[in-house]
């Protein structure tokens, strides 16, 4: 880790801490939303950027996490226990869903998860004895930790920041462990990784399940933030939005999804002055980014940086050789 990187991390932490000061409730809400989607997008990044599989069910896992947390906390269970249930349930469902899909190669995880997301929506909507149906669940409590009550917007923000930092640290640790290195091997050359004795299917499955569990965690935070959930908030469109966050930010980069989530959550806000046209402009921006920098914004930044300091690159070490 370079000194520059440590400095950057430090600045980022400080920025997170002072960002909401003196801001209205709305801005704090948007910041919370950004951090929660960052967690979800980081989870998808594990599946997509490191294990190379497209999952289109991240919103469904957020939904599963949100509903479990909502139902449990509304029944009087503490959030800490509820979030544990949300994460484990998402992990187990991820395993069960990914196992059969990953036996067949190609884009089949994408297809299965796409179907799964809509199925989850249908169950959440139709089983109204449990989920409140299309009317949703209203009045989800925010957690209390002894004297620290997160009912107000600012304390809730710091609570989300803590969850975010813990998740990010766990993720960083995971990626630097031997296991995480195996991941990189998998992404860069699956056939070689396989021939070196890595069980690629099991690794991919684990990546997908952990990514899904992070979706569950994001959901468990979103339910108390909004204090209302309904099935329509967890449809395929949201999954596509999270996918967008990862790719536009830069998949396979640690900070890519965080940047992407910021863009997707804040951009409509910044483009508000364009009235009804902001979605059009937004779509155009995404197209332009994808056409000119398929590695996303972080990739673009690195390219720009690299163009300032010329480097010798050995052609025989190039990654992602086509086989």
């Amino acid at each position, binding site marked *: 880790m370079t000194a520059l990187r440590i400095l950057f991390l430090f600045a980022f932490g400080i920025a997170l801490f002072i960002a909401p000061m003196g801001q209205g409730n709305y801005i704090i809400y948007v910041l919370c939303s950004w951090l929660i989607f960052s967690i979800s997008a980081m989870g998808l990044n594990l599946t997509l950027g490191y294990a190379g599989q*497209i999952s289109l069910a991240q919103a469904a896992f957020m939904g599963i996490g949100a509903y479990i947390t909502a139902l449990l906390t509304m029944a009087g269970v503490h959030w800490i226990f509820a979030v544990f249930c949300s994460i484990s349930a998402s992990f187990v469902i991820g395993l069960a869903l990914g196992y059969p899909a990953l036996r067949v190669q190609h884009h089949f995880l994408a297809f299965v998860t796409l179907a799964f997301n809509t199925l989850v929506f249908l169950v959440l909507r139709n089983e109204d004895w449990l989920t409140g149906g299309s009317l949703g669940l209203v009045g989800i409590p925010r957690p209390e930790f002894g004297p620290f009550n997160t009912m107000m917007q600012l304390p809730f923000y710091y609570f989300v920041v803590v969850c975010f930092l813990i998740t990010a640290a766990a993720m960083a640790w995971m990626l630097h462990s031997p296991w995480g290195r195996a991941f990189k091997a998998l992404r860069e050359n699956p056939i070689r990784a396989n021939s070196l004795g890595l069980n690629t299917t099991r690794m991919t499955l684990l990546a997908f399940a952990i990514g899904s569990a992070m979706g569950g965690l994001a959901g468990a935070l979103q339910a108390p933030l909004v204090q209302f959930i309904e099935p329509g908030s967890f449809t395929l469109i949201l999954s596509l939005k999270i996918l967008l966050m990862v790719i536009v930010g830069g998949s396979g980069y640690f900070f890519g999804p965080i940047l992407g989530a910021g863009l997707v959550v804040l951009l409509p806000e910044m483009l508000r002055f364009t009235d009804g046209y902001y979605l059009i402009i*937004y*779509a155009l921006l995404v197209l332009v980014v994808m056409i000119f920098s*398929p590695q996303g914004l972080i990739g673009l930044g690195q390219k720009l940086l690299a163009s300032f300091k010329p480097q010798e690159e050995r052609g025989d070490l190039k990654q992602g050789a086509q086989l």
Partner: protein
Amino acid sequence: MAELLQILVSGLSAGAIYALAAVGFTLLWQASQTINFAQGEFVMLPAFFVLAGMTIFGLPLWAAILTAMVLSLLILGAMFKKLIVEPMLPHGTLPLVIATIALGLLMKESVKEFYSAQGQPFPTLFPQHVLDFFGASISVQDICNLIVAFAAIISLQLFLGRTRTGRAMQATAQDPRVAEILGVDVKRMVMYTFLINGALAAIASILISPVYLAKFSNGETLGMIAFIAAIVGGFNQIKGALVGGLLIGVIDNVAAVYISAEYRAAIPLILLIVIIMVRPQGIMGTSEGRTV
């Protein structure tokens, strides 16, 4: 009995149109190995070209349809390929998937902003006369839709199988590098594929809109159904898309009548998952040799 017949007849006429959208999906998959998430919007848009031609420029219906066809070839075919797919193809499928999502959003929002947020009635090409078919009602329009959809898909199949250009296109789809070595103009063949997709989308749009009405958000449901139909039928076979489309049309109706209206949307999805588990290449598809 009349009930079952009605379900079958209605399902087939809806399914024929799903098939048209699904074929385009399959074609693009073969040509560029990408999932076109804007396919639903591709079917939504040409109807608005027709409407704009008629209401803004005062064209008669046939001229508006002709203009819409040309615009679809240009925009949904050539421009889509030149401006979006071509520059992105070397970077793998993921950025392209995202680009098609953005493109779908762009098309949807543009129609909403520049034409209308509300559904629009759409002129029908065929008489709406209803026939009694052993107790089931079927309109002349449904029959014509079926015939046009079948004709379009069968002639496409013949074109691909029987003509030189068609075979060159198939070779390109299977392995562009080998095709290139064999002297096929790969770029042109890929372009043909995109043009055909544009034309099919326009046909589907003009057939579907009198019944389903023209609305900016129509692509959402349609794209999803086309997608399921393409996978269920077999992603690498044109006739797979036809079978998949018809099957989804019928199954949707059967599910709504006999199983559960609340879960009708779930049945095709469950079918999709089962097909992927049991027969990943689809009902009509052939297994692809590539593993990575």
